[in-house]
């Protein structure tokens, strides 16, 4: 059914990505989840249609999609496989710092790699610094014309397979948050290595690793913005990423709803009637649909505010929180409704329920989102 609130181009894009997802992602998602291996080959397919670097502006060779279009694409990818969407979302996220603080040269370098098919990574979290990014212990010291980076990053999405990444390090540990700076690091730099791969409960085919930086030397001009601006860049990046995560979550929730509806139509109760005919089941489906639709519209609303150039921080945080909570509850309800079948690997919804949980956690936990929303309300 056409999504008539979208422009014609956006509708066409939606149809196109829906077909792509049905053909290339949905058939393999379960198998790759089971294996927990990186879905390289899906990525190859996405590169063929040029959707791997949506966030790159046209002047640097990107497809030039507006943010609603990007959201439409990410919702479809989320519908197909949250792990894959996470990889692509992370790719976009890793390039936002460039949009925020990159020079033309830096953009050429970074975007260039993405357009050429390389993956981008974003390494902020550390074992001791999660929501509290200021507790960063990775350091960067200027030595002549080069920065020397030392430290360990964890839960770094896609970084095990990335070609280039934005790494946060402290240029002045005594200043805490204000000493944090952002750097561009290419994977081939000496001293850069990938540590342990994280085995996760969900989004298992996405790549989450530990990064080890041992005397990694990068040119002086790989500093993004100024020294001490790292936190500001990170926060703006997460601002921009919120609607994208929210879009994926809407996709996850929609998939769960669709599965539950199909089940309710097909599964016959002991008297031979489809269980959807039972009002209790029907109302449950209705509740799920109410949440999914509300989540989708919250995301679109935040993005339209962004396109209109008005502040949307609060709305983006609201959308992220509501959409990811929706993915969580709707996927869990779908498993419940589908009973033993939903709980088993015979159905896709058990994967949705494992995947959905992480959307409430990453790219700013929903507690951090509430801090943002409350901060906006009370300022």
């Amino acid at each position: 059914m056409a999504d008539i609130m979208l422009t014609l181009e956006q509708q066409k894009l939606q149809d196109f990505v829906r077909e792509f997802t049905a053909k290339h992602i949905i058939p393999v998602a379960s198998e790759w989840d089971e294996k927990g291996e990186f879905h390289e080959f899906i990525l190859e397919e996405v590169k063929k249609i040029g959707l791997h670097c949506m966030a790159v502006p046209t002047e640097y060779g990107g497809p030039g999609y507006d943010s609603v279009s990007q959201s439409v694409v990410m919702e479809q990818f989320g519908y197909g496989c949250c792990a894959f969407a996470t990889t692509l979302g992370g790719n976009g996220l890793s390039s936002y710092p460039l949009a925020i603080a990159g020079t033309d040269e830096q953009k050429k370098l970074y975007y260039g790699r993405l357009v050429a098919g390389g993956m981008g990574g974003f390494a902020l979290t550390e074992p001791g610094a999660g929501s509290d990014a200021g507790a960063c212990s990775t350091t960067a010291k200027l030595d002549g014309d080069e920065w020397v980076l030392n430290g360990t990053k964890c839960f770094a999405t896609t970084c095990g397979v990335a070609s280039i990444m934005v790494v946060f390090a402290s240029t002045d540990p005594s200043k805490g948050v204000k000493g944090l700076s952002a750097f561009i690091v290419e994977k081939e730099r000496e001293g850069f290595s990938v540590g342990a791969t994280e085995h996760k409960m969900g989004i298992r085919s996405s790549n989450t690793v530990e990064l080890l930086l041992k005397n990694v030397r990068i040119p002086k001009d790989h500093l993004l913005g100024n020294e001490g601006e790292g936190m500001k860049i990170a926060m703006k990046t997460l601002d921009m990423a919120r609607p994208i995560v929210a879009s994926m979550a809407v996709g996850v929730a929609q998939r769960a709803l669709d599965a539950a509806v199909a089940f309710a139509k097909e599964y016959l109760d002991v008297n031979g009637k489809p269980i959807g005919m039972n009002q209790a089941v029907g109302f449950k489906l209705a509740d799920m649909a109410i949440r999914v639709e509300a989540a989708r519209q919250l995301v679109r609303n935040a993005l339209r505010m962004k396109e209109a150039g008005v502040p949307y921080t609060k709305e983006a945080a609201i959308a992220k929180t509501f959409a990811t909570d929706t993915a969580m509850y709707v996927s869990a309800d779908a498993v419940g409704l589908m009973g033993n079948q939903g709980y088993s690997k015979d159905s896709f919804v058990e994967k949705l329920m494992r995947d959905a949980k992480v959307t409430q956690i990453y790219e700013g936990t929903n507690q951090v989102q509430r801090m943002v929303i409350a901060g906006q309300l009370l300022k």
Partner: protein
Amino acid sequence: MPKVLVCYKWVLDEQDIKINLGDLSLDSSRAKYKISDYDKNAIEEATLLIEAHGGNVDALTFGSDKVKQSLKDALSRGPGSVQWIGDAAFEQADAFVTANVLAAAIRKNGTYDLILCGEGSADSYNQQVAPRLAALLEIPAITFVQKLCMDGSRTIATRKLGDCTEVVEVEGPAVISVLPEINKPRIPSLKQVMAAAKKPSQEIKLVELELSADDIIPKTVSVSVKGYIMNRKNILFKEASHADNVAKLVASLAQEGLC
């Protein structure tokens, strides 16, 4: 067939005791009781002995009025019967009083081939009751036993002494205190728990033991009990170079006498 007695103490579970951070006083208001861990080894060893040689095991305990709650627990672990002395005098009792009370109760019952105790109690851990009991009963004491065998009226025990072991033999009745490594106490099956309710238990009143007033006045008095807590010092080294951080860390550890 041997007649074995095992003594146990009903103590507060130290895991449930919280330390009040202000004055380091102990808060045991939510603590549950348990059979002192070392005494569980004694009960198990006594039970193993009669499972191997026949005979029977009785249990004996001295505690506050709450000690009655311990009977089924003790009985589910093997003994065929239990005697208990529950008296307020227990609250202040030291090893001297406890041994006097237990010895009087044992004398009242007649003789045993062996009397088993844990090495010490989980709360005060004085390690005195077993040797004192032996002295009062005028029979040998064998302490720190990690292996125990019976051969007719002879008992052969392996004692653990620092980094060597000693095997001793004793003829006739003796008091034995056992180490935790002597066995692994069984986890009672549910039928054993249910059966415990049907086993006999007998209360002995402290007055029935006809002890003199001096016998139940403790020689040592606990003046205070305070928690001992280890605090993190939360020292953060924030030097720019890791080498400086390491140097400071080592210096700090050395200052604490830790390296």
